[in-house]
């Protein structure tokens, strides 16, 4: 790609001026530019120095390895380019089908294309045509692939069978028929069915420049389709019903998406093979999902990963004709996938573990502070004298053993929680016992109050919708209505468990400043500008 910038700057400028009328979302635009400029670059041939530098004289450059890696062959070059564009198109289309939860349709389609290829081969042979003509074989593939999809739709809509059963039936029956027909071809006089195996596992080594051009052009059409219909397809995938209610023709959009899947799949047969074509549709999109929560970024990533996987897989297959390109592409893409799954910055396994750990720490801290507060409450003569707690706080310290006995937590976990609280200046350690700091006391009182309110809420309103109440919200006031909280406070009061709300922990408490009885700041003072924090699952970068 680094070649692209220097060699085709003029072309880029020209294209930019004529395309700039169509404004697309920024990222997709960049992708479009890269693809288009890559086309231009490759159509002109690889820009190489007019006079080869001496280093090119080394022997290895003339070996097959060197020829392939440096893409000296026009044929290799165009084939790899075709496969690369195919990978990009598959990534884009695959993102839509993945989000539409129709990912396996591509699989059924590609498997169902085999009998069509075989029949097209036999027919061409019968009538004396060129049985290896790619367009003709692909016509056969499309026809039987679409027939397969149609059968799936009929089974799904006209019987009580679900889509997975329909997919399983069609996929295996069509593929079986295709394998049987290939056997028939082997028995035929002409017998040179060897080229057809490339359709099953993919073989870039046997591709010609004309085939690659067909792949590249079709893929570019698909990429353009994805970009132009981005908004409509996004709506279709997210909320079909709403799309229909707004007057978008859902069936036609679905058909459009399916057409793009068909185009990518059919032209990809030769490069990737029908058994593994699904990998190129699913894996890049699935891998991209781990990195982002934005649709156009996901598609950009999917296109990049698909392109990368295809280039590497295609090159390897061109190097070793014995290695099917489909298998290589799948292997490379799966490496991308596992790396994304582990390291993905939004949904990756590691980031989720970290979030879980943070959540656990937060819970530990809440438990610790609540335990401290309850101890203070006890020492100051019970909850009736909660107001005393603050003064008591100055004198009372709680031993580790006492805290340990209050909950079922391990000594190690508790010590860690205490260490972190000390670091954040919520706790002090004095003579081996814990003492709350002023900030710690305020936070502890707030947490305890919140906890008691929630407990009370669950008891008092168990029958009301609680399923989706955001119980992790930092401020209960953001979730429950003020009158509900008032009621809960009353209930707590009856049981003598009420806690006067201390001053905000964010501002220093000026001496002598006390709360008048009955006043509950924070309950009515719903500060509209602060948002409920849900950092446990939150996506703050």
């Amino acid at each position, binding site marked *: 790609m680094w070649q692209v910038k220097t060699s085709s700057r003029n072309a880029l400028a020209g294209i930019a001026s004529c395309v700039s009328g169509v404004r697309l979302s920024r990222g997709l635009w960049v992708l479009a530019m890269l693809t288009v400029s890559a086309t231009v670059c490759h159509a002109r041939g690889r820009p190489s120095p007019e006079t080869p530098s001496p280093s090119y004289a080394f022997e290895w450059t003339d070996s097959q390895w060197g020829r392939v890696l440096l893409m000296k062959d026009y044929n290799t070059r165009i084939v790899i380019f075709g496969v690369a564009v195919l990978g990009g198109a598959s990534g884009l289309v695959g993102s839509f089908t993945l989000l539409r939860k129709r990912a396996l349709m591509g699989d059924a389609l590609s498997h169902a294309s085999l009998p069509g290829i075989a029949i097209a081969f036999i027919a061409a042979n019968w009538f004396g045509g060129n049985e290896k003509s790619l367009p003709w074989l692909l016509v056969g593939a499309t026809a039987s692939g679409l027939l397969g999809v149609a059968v799936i739709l009929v089974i799904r809509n006209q019987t009580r069978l679900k889509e997975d059963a329909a997919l399983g039936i069609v996929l295996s029956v069509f593929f079986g028929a295709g394998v049987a027909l290939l056997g028939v071809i082997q028995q035929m006089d002409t017998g040179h069915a060897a080229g057809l195996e490339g359709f099953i596992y993919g073989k870039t080594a046997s591709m010609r420049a004309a085939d690659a051009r067909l792949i590249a052009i079709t893929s570019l059409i698909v990429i353009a389709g994805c970009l132009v219909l981005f*908004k409509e397809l996004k709506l279709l995938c*997210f909320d079909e019903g709403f799309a229909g209610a707004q007057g978008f023709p859902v069936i036609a959009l679905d058909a459009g998406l399916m057409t793009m899947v068909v185009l990518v799949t059919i032209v990809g047969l030769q490069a990737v093979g029908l058994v593994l074509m699904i990998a190129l549709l699913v894996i890049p999109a699935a891998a991209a*999902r781990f990195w982002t929560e934005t649709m156009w970024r996901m598609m950009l990533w999917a296109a990049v990963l698909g392109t990368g996987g295809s280039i590497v897989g295609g090159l390897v297959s061109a190097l070793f004709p014995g290695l099917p390109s489909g298998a290589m592409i799948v292997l490379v893409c799966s490496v991308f996938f596992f790396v994304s799954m582990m390291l993905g910055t939004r949904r990756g396994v590691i980031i989720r573990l970290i979030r879980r750990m943070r959540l656990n720490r937060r819970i530990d801290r809440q438990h610790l502070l609540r335990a401290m507060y309850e101890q203070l409450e006890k020492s100051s003569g019970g909850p009736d004298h909660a107001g005393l707690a603050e003064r008591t706080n100055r004198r009372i310290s709680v031993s580790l053993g006492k805290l340990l006995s209050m909950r079922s937590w391990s000594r190690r976990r508790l010590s860690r929680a205490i260490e972190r609280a000390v670091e954040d200046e919520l706790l002090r350690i004095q003579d081996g016992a814990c003492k709350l700091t002023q900030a710690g006391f305020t936070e502890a009182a707030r947490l305890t109050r919140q906890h008691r309110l929630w407990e009370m809420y669950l008891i008092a309103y168990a029958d009301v*919708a609680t*399923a*989706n*109440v955001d119980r992790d919200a930092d401020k209960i006031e953001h*979730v429950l209505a003020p009158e509900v909280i008032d009621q809960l406070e009353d209930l707590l009061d009856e049981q003598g468990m009420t806690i006067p709300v201390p001053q905000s922990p964010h501002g220093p408490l000026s001496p002598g400043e006390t709360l008048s009885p009955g006043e509950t700041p924070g309950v009515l003072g719903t500060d509209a500008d602060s948002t409920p924090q849900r950092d446990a699952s939150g996506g703050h970068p």
Partner: protein
Amino acid sequence: MLNPPERNDDANLPTAARDDGTGAEVPLSVYDLTVAYHRKPVIWDVGFDLPAGQLIGIVGPNGAGKSTLLKAVMDLIPRASGRVRVFGDTYRENRHRVGYVPQRESVDWQFPVSALDVVAMGLYDKIGWCRPVRKRHREQAREALGRVGIGDLADRQISQLSGGQQQRTFLARALVQDADLYLMDEPFAAVDAATERAIVEILRDLKERGKTAAVIHHDLQTVPEYFDYVVLLNMRVVAQGPVSQTFTQDNLQKTYGGRLTLLDEVTEAMRRRESSL
């Protein structure tokens, strides 16, 4: 696409759908509507005219065909028979005057879009085919999120919203449609108390601005408080009319049959309402 518009057939229109010269348009009139899945009718010969400028509750037991009714009105599912008129014309003609809030469970909230993206979807029809969402559309969407009280969550991915916030997002998406008739499928289902209040306030605001809202509702106790008019549905329309006349124990018994355990509480709620008037 499923039901060709039948405009020359005025004789079968509900009376109110014809221009009666009063100038007041009927937002939604349904006549003789039957919908069936696999030969089993879900709603049967349903007919009603909704009054303009009111909040209308559509109430009935599970499986009574409430969602089916809304979907059939919007041509989302095929009708076996019947006719629907929205402001006196087919839904197709007047769909830009209708805002829709689907059930929250109907979409995948893991989808990689932000709350703002979802609200902007309400503008897609106005933006038009193949045109991008521009800044002014995003501003409009942001403003609608502000109206439902979650303007500060606009850029959050939708799975990171609580259930109530998700429901508000859907509501904001309908608000940007700037419709005259809103069809809402259980907006109060499983939301927190603050969201419930916010939705009620928005409904009242819509009413003040002369809009009509037809809302599928499950909680019988709040029907007298939230709605002016009620359609009791159980495959057929059991009763319809202003809440004070229609929402009676007798009608509820007919709608819910033996399944109603909340009857006494509803009676109590009605009594409270009357005494407060």
